[in-house]
């Protein structure tokens, strides 16, 4: 009897030992890491070797266990390449849940594709990516790649946590560098995370992090960049597409950028210069001159992005833009600068992050940053910023793409960090004036004028460019609270001088008043119902923020149907708090007429996770009061 038992034990033992040889079985993952996770990063290691100013080698080893379809996007098994970045090695191995190898994917099995996307017309960037169909979940992928590049201007940022619904078992960063290139780093949001710095010398830097739990996405959260740990790295002496560069101070960096990258790009044909001078005529004021030129550029050019080699960083020649009438943000900014130069108005290329979400150039970390370029015109110790890729923006308008953030202004004497224009909450207005009538069958007909300014101008003025079907869809969405909405005449007034956009709209709708027996019921506020549906989040972890505040005021005349009397009228309502102020008022007038007044002011601000429910309730009360109904009884 003993012998078979022994045999069984032996058999078990071999199973265990062979399993030990297997890589990363799913059973080895801690339960806490599985919570809220679609995938777990078992190991995420990057070895960056900066060999010289012109040579950087990056090795990536990622081991990811994927639990479901959503976790597929966390595999990140792709590598970009171009003329200056070559892929020396790329491969992947797939293991099943027990850690048994099921598939090996070699370089030739990766798909090779051009990486031209979105608004880019052409770029020589390409990508090798893994296209793997899982045969079952969970599974684990081990991905390895090695690249080499001569561009050392961009050392990849290191994110310890690569995404939401993803947890990390182990994360390692190793960087080696010569001590004479001025390597520097900046750490962000380390607190609360188990991150160890294992090496920090004049030739090496290493970090290790363990057990980072998966995070959920939550509405109104700051960007993950502003919440979770990351490291920025850079060199004081770097190389970019055949050009050596320096970045010790912003002044140096700006000078380098001006001398090495921008220089010689603003030449214009004499003919164009003459034309521009004639266009400006006797105008002396630099701002007025700039307005004329901005208008000229807007009418002449369009946005086309072609990114080849250094062209990704160096603007196209102004003379080419002049001939072709197109370019990307750098080309169009630089072209505008060249035209301004021709009429003796100074202006500076300005590098920044263009995004609705406000993000700064890190002012205390001198390096190549940003993704966008605008133009700064100095006057009276201030700057006016021009968005040169837009054919519609009013002069100096910064809307929601470049407002209120730190940017790098490249002056000939060097770079300086400047804050762009801040649109104050009280100036982001929408003023509604109008009226509506309800007939005895509950049908509504009315007219409204909506005037928008400040940051509200940016979203509203887009309505002007919509096609008729899109315009119809837009208003039916905007007034989705009104069923059976029919649009009448719509007129727009775009006052670019004062930056105010006015919509003048006639509407009608059958059955707005709901008739039940001898009563008619309808919400008083037909035209400006609060749209922010603030979700209930069971236990919120992140702080939240409101990036831009606003002020809406409404004054609407209401004509009630004849033959009805008012049974109930919502009472006046007021709400004040740290998030803002809200007030409604209904004034009864003779002949079944009412005046409805509403004002809603929202502060911008940053708040803690604990305040979220308070905000939700604040907005909910507003939305409930916006929905307050009037009840009429048939006489």
């Amino acid at each position, binding site marked *: 009897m003993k012998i078979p038992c022994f045999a069984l034990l032996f058999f078990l033992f071999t199973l265990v030992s062979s399993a030990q040889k297997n890589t990363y079985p799913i059973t080895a993952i801690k339960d806490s890491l599985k919570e*809220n996770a679609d995938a777990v990063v078992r190991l995420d290691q990057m070895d960056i070797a900066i060999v010289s100013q012109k040579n950087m080698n990056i090795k990536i080893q990622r081991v990811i266990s994927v639990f479901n*379809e*959503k976790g597929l996007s966390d595999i990140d098994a792709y590598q970009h390449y171009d003329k200056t970045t070559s892929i020396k090695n790329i491969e992947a191995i797939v293991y099943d849940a027990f850690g048994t190898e099921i*598939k090996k994917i070699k370089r030739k099995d990766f*798909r*090779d*594709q*051009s990486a*031209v996307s979105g608004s880019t*017309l*052409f770029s020589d960037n390409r990508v090798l990516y893994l296209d793997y*169909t*899982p*045969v*079952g979940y969970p599974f684990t992928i081990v991905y390895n790649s090695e690249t080499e590049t001569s561009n050392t201007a961009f050392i990849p940022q290191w994110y310890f946590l690569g995404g939401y619904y993803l947890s990390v078992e182990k994360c390692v960063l190793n960087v080696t560098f010569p001590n004479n290139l001025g390597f520097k780093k900046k750490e962000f949001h380390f607190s609360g995370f188990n991150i160890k710095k294992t090496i920090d010398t004049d030739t090496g830097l290493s970090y290790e992090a363990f057990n980072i739990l998966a995070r959920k996405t939550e509405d109104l959260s700051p960007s993950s960049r502003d919440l979770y740990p990351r490291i920025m790295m850079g060199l004081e002496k770097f190389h970019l597409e055949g050009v050596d560069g320096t970045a010790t101070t912003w002044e140096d960096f700006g000078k380098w950028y001006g001398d090495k990258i921008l220089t010689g790009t603003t030449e214009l044909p004499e003919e164009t210069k003459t034309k521009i001078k004639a266009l400006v005529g006797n105008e002396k004021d630099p701002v007025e001159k700039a307005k004329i030129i901005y208008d000229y550029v807007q*009418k*002449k050019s*369009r946005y*086309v992005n*072609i990114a080849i080699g250094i062209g990704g960083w160096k603007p196209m020649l102004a003379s*080419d833009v002049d*001939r*072709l*009438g*197109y370019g990307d943000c750098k080309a169009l900014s630089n072209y505008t600068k060249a035209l301004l130069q021709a009429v003796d108005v100074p202006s500076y290329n300005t590098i920044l992050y263009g995004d609705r979400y406000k993000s700064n150039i890190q002012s205390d970390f001198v390096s190549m940053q940003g993704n966008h370029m605008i133009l700064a015109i100095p006057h009276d110790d201030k700057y006016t910023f021009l968005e040169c890729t837009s*054919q*519609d923006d009013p002069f100096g308008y910064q809307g929601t793409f470049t407002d209120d953030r730190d940017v790098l202004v490249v002056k000939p004497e060097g770079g300086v960090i400047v804050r762009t224009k801040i649109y104050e909450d009280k100036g982001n207005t929408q003023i509604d004036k109008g009226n509506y009538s309800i007939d005895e069958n509950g049908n509504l007909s009315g007219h409204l004028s909506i005037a928008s300014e400040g940051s509200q101008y940016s979203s509203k003025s887009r309505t002007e*460019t919509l*096609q*008729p*079907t899109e315009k*119809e869809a837009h208003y*039916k969405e905007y007034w*989705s609270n009104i*069923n*059976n*909405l*029919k649009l009448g005449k719509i007129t727009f007034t775009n006052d670019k001088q004062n930056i105010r956009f006015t919509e003048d709209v006639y509407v009608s709708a*059958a*059955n707005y008043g*709901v*008739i*039940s*027996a001898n*009563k008619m*019921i309808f919400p008083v506020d037909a035209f400006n119902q609060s749209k922010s*549906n603030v*979700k*209930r*989040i*069971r236990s919120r972890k992140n702080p939240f923020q409101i990036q831009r505040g606003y002020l809406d005021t409404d004054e609407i005349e209401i004509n009630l149907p004849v033959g009805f009397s008012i*049974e*109930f009228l*919502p009472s006046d309502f007021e709400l004040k708090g740290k998030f803002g102020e809200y007030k409604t008022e209904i004034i009864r007038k003779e002949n079944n007429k009412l005046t409805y007044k509403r004002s809603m002011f929202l502060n911008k601000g940053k708040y803690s996770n604990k305040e979220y429910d308070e905000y939700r309730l604040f907005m*909910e009360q507003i939305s*409930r009061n916006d*929905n*307050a*109904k009037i*009840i009429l009884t048939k006489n």
Partner: protein
Amino acid sequence: MKCIKFFSFLLVLFILNQTTAQEFKLGKVSVAELEQKKHPKDSSAAAAILYKKGSATIDYNQQEGFVLITHVEARIKVYKKEGYDWANQSVTYYNGSNDSREKVDFSDVCTFNLVNGKIEKTKLKSDGIFNEEVNKYRARKKITMPNVKEGSVLEYSYTIRTSNITMMRDWAFQTSIPVNYSEYVTYIPEYYTFSSRQKGYIFPKVTVNKQSRSILFTNKERSGGLSTHTTYSTDNVDYLETQTIYIAEDLPGMKEESFVNNINNYTSSMEQELSMVKFPNSQIKTFSTDWNSVAKTIYEYDDFGPELNKTGYFEDDLKALLAGVTSPEEKMLIILNHVKSNVKWNEYYGYSCDKGVRKAYQEKSGNIAEINLMLTAMLRHSGLTANPVLVSTRSNGVALFPNRTAYNYVIAAVETENGYILLDASEKFSIPNVLPLRTLNWQGRLIRKDGTSEEIDLMPKKASNDIVFLTYNIDPEGKVTGQARRQCTDYNAMITRKNIFSTKEDEYLEKLENQNNKIEISDYSKTNEKEILKPIIETYSFTGNNLCEIIGGKIYVSPMLFFSNEKNPFNQETREYPVDFGFPFMDKYNITIKIPDGYAVETLPAPAAMTMQDNLGSFKFNIAANENTLQMVISHQINEAIVSTQQYEMLKDYYKAMIAKESEKIVLKKI
């Protein structure tokens, strides 16, 4: 003198004609075209195609034999900035390694502007031409035109050459902007027969001409020996060429609408497909001319029919699975489940196998053809009468005309006494006769072993149900507490299961709460979660503070709470294309409401019923009060998956009336 005057008059007339009439020839841009501020028939158009001409010519040359040359030229007017996108053009072409490789060249690319009353012409230089190698097979030639402003007129032309004459491109007469004139001409030697198919609402005018052409062959003969000797001889072969001209004028821009399965089904366009080849002294070779021969051709492809005959790779597995199973239905379900759980779809479409069924089975993943042909083979092997059914997915457009490219997908059909049962093993929650939504696209084509075929209606006929039992109490503060039980069948069950299983339960409930007036859900449970042949049932308790309104001391409540339809999805004034619901359905609500003590009903919505013509759908609304309990039964039923544009107005009014009824309130007053 008289004579001269007459002459000059003629000349003036001629010149006048030149400037006012549009000339459909590259370079001949008129001042009138440049001056035009908006499109005469569509003032909102951002741009318009003033003319577009295309030709497909099959030409002979001695090196390559017959080659296909496609030439396209166009003139585009830009009215507004939003039309600037038309200044970027691209042609995608095949760049693989075989004979089908295409070569694309742009030429005569110019921008015309009016500067101080004069026409200014800017030519495209090489810095505006790009070639993007997308992947191993495809590349894209792109141009971006210089000096484009509001009012500019753009011209371009390009030529595509290939030695694979079957690759004749489709021609779209219509696009998203107005087209004033569109012309397409084919030049086809008598040896080839193409079938051309038109779709859309606007048909071009067709003219056919025949002309004779000849090919000059030069033969070189060498006679060997000590001194080589070359002789040349020439042969002349005459043949007839058919020229077919298609012309369409004044085509309006296409507009996107919701509930449309694929706008391309309605765009005026044309496809050409080679149907026959007949060279002198050789046999006629026919390709697809009707659906039957299309099906037969596809069946005979190496990566289709033969793949159905392979059985070795699964025989052992199937034997084990089906041991002791006799009922055909059970066999079918076991096999479907076996394929579903063992071979995953790699998201690639097509009716042709890529790596083949055997390899797909081993590697546990494959494209649609591999999965469903394998399924068909297994069903056949188990003794069932099973056949593949070719399908064109919704994104591919409706298969209107017989040709091999009309289809892009394949499913399986089992023949039973009660008709066909359709199966697709590529989707987890799909069951017999409940197919993934992508396949629900009018007709498919079933192919039998002998190559004969038959049309199969893919559109579901049976209504998918969504039945809700809702019981709730209202308290004097307007707070609602209750239970909901929701049962979904067929397509609704498939969709619901997908929703449930695509998120974690916690998130699913959070979403459910937020979408339903921020109710709080507890005691959530599911029945038949895994038994996908049965309806899926969800039950939960809920409380809600936002479900009633207290106005002037009275309680107002929409009886269906968060289940009422609040918005009419059909808010367009007019409808260009049919409404596509995907499948017929019935939503039914059984509601029991308990009103608070001390309250009585003041007003109740009146019972109502309506039906649409042609039995398209019906709505019933019944309500009865019994002391402090209210009983309601509401049903909304659409009997057709597709509703024609003629019926749109009726459908819109039906929804309007239904929503008005559902939003009527019950009013409760204090006693």
